[in-house]
Structure formats: C-alpha cells, structure tokens
C-alpha cells in the first residue's frame, strides 16, 4: 500500500514547507509581546519576533534566517562575571542539541553594542512523539547592564 518515494509534483514540493508546528509557533511569536526565537530542526534560526529585535539589535527582516552557529556567536553569551559561555550549553543549544528543556540567566551584547542580562527558557518542539521539529526560545530581559570591569573578566 505504501509506495516509497514517487516522483511527482507532490514529492518535489515536499519538505519545502516548514513544519506546521513551527508555523503555529511563529504565529504565536508574531502576536505576543514576549521576545521569542524559533530554531528549526536543522539548527537554523528561522524567525524572531519584533520584541526580540530589541535584544538582537536588528530587525529580523534585515537579518533573515541564519545558521545557529552564526547567531550564537553574534550574541556573545557570557555569565555575570563576563566569562564566555559555549553556545552548546546555553538553553537554545541544549534544546536543539539535547532536545530537552533548559533555563538560564545569561548576558549578551547585541548588534547595537548594549550588554543585557536576560533569562532564556528554551524547549524542543516535537511534531509527533519522535519527530523533532525545532525549538522555541523565550527571552526575559532584565534590562541593560554594564559590563564588569575588564580586570574582573
């Protein structure tokens, strides 16, 4: 009954559309005042909403989709003392790489040069029990923070 991959317009169109879970998550993100990032199953930052633009320092329309490594590096995540954090261990990395929920307070410097203290809650999204669709990252901003003195880093 089930006939493997068949060449047809349906097949050619397959996978060109994002998971409906991400589509619905984007609609949620587009309608709330809480900053939200969406990562797809391949680790691409596929969307952030307008409230998140204040954290990133640039509108999503200007930045567009980007590999997770690029945006992780551009955020320069640090702990309170100014020590760099691996993007693999902060919540977006944990939600993507380990497919589990995580929460942490970190400090980032956006493209506008402002250092901010934020809490991040990230969790994986599954379309079905075992189909990883991506991850959603929710940011809780504490406001601009001065970087610690250089000698303290």
């Amino acid at each position, binding site marked *: *009954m*089930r*006939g*493997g*991959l*068949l060449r*047809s*317009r*349906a*097949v050619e*169109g*397959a996978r*060109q*559309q*994002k*998971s*409906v879970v991400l*589509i*619905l998550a*984007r*609609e949620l993100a*587009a*309608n709330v005042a809480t900053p939200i990032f969406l990562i797809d199953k391949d680790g691409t930052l596929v969307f952030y909403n307008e409230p998140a633009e204040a954290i990133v320092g640039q509108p999503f329309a200007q930045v567009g989709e980007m590999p997770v490594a690029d945006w992780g590096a551009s955020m320069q995540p640090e702990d309170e003392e100014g020590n760099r954090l691996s993007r693999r261990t902060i919540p977006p990395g944990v939600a993507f790489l380990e497919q589990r929920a995580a929460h942490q307070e970190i400090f980032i410097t956006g493209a506008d040069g402002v250092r901010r203290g934020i809490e991040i809650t990230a969790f994986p999204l599954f*379309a*079905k*029990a075992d*189909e990883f669709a991506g991850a959603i990252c929710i940011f809780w901003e504490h406001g601009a923070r001065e970087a610690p003195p250089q000698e303290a880093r």
Partner: protein
Amino acid sequence: MRARIWGCRGSLAAPGPETVRYGGNTSCVEVRLDDGTAIVLDAGTGIRPLGLQLDREGVKVVHLLLSHLHMDHLQGLGFFRPIYDAGVELHVWGPPSTVQSLQDRIGAYLSPPLFPVSLSEIPSKLFFHDAPDEPWTIGSATVLAVTVAHQGPTLGYRIEEAGRSLAYIPDHEPSIGVDLRSLGVDWLSGHEVARDADVLIHDAQYSEEEYPEHVGWGHSSIEHVVTFAQLAKVKRLLLFHHDPHHSDAELDALCVRARELWPGSEERLHVGAEGMEIDLSKLSLIDL
C-alpha cells in the same frame, strides 16, 4: 480522475429550504481514479447517500481519507452502507496521534452510548492506517497527507493521477493575526498540499465581517481562502465547508465577494455544491 461532492457544509448538517441549492450535508467528496479505485474524502453526513451509490455499484474496496476526527467529518461513517457488507474492505486513513490509535479514536464515537453499534460488530473488513509522512500510492494515484493549521491534528490531502492534482483542505485557518502575503510560502500552512493544484477544495467558512469573531476557531475567511489559492497558484478553487448559518443567498454573495478579491476568476472560482462533479482530466465542472 473525477470528483463528486456529496457534502460541503461545515460544522453541522443544515438541511432546509434555505440550503437546497448548495446542500446541507457535511463534508464528503468521492474521488474515482482512472483505474476505478474509490477514494472518499471525509465521512460527514454526505457519505450516507454515497454509500448507497457504492452499494448499488457493488464496489468492494474503499479508501476513506479522514482530514480529522471532528464530528462533522466522521458522523456519517456509521450510516455508510458498505461497512455492513462482509465482502467490503474499508481502509481508513487519518491523522496520527501521540496518545491513541486511529481505531481507538474512531471507536470512541462508533460505540455505545454515542452509537448503537461498536466497531467490533461491523461486518466489513476494516483497516486503520496512520497517514504516512511521505507520499504513498492508492490504486493509480499518489497521495500526500500534510498536517495543516486547524484545531487538533488535521491533514490536508493531495491526490495526483495522470498529471492532474486535487488538493483537499476542508478545515484550515492558514494564518492567525499574520498577513498571509507577508509570509514566504514555506511558512504557509497547506502550501505543500495546494501548490499548483489543478483543483483546490478549501475551507471558506466565514465572511470577512464574521471572521473577527471567530479568530482561532480553525477556519478561513473568504479573503484567506482567495489569498491562499492565489499564493498556491491553483488553477481552480472550490469554496467548501460552508457555515451552517449561511443560506444559499448568502453563499451567492460570498462568491461575488471572492471573485471581487480575485479579478478574472469567474471561470476558476466556484462555490462547492452537493452533486457538483469535477472531471480533472478535462478540468471541467459538470452538473453544476
């Protein structure tokens, strides 16, 4: 491939003098492939008269593709005469669930006290299948099932045969609070099913005035469905899943509005009606 509409009403059957022309039965579309295979899209109340027809023809294998399990898409199953024929083989395809099998979910309706007959008492041979993630074959057609935005797990189906395609998305709210035209088509729920389809049968439950009171209910406004069809570049559009409160006259008015939104669409945009037949080999509507 030919398709015939046996029910195009949404939410609840709505018989009566005000719905005679477009019909009051809920969702059911018969698709006959070139090799004679019988596919049925949804088991709304329209499946009852279809069952009588299939019984008269002596059809012994039927594939029922359920978009989802809301009652208006399932209610007719217990009155589908072929299921009471021990010689009939019925394959039921539907959206997977993480918690219950398709059979158990359908059995919740087809069992007392909601229905006098249990699934186990039905004499025909029933086979339940979670719709696969990848395209599969039924008879001479390729079928694709893709999850679309509605309330609960819901599928849109695309049936392709001999270079023609029929897309069926009866319950769909492609966008909530986001302008569809602002999205890339990869962010457009249902696009994978509908793109470049020869015929799209799509939810058109609300007028633009009614929609603001129904945001998030999982259905489209006229503006949604027209925009969606344009973005998907479909060749023909049938408005479907009519609100039970809409009279024939109101559906006529919705058609006028839809054609205003899509200038030059008089030949390609129609209101779905019971008895309407579509010959996809000729891309013609007959028995309108």
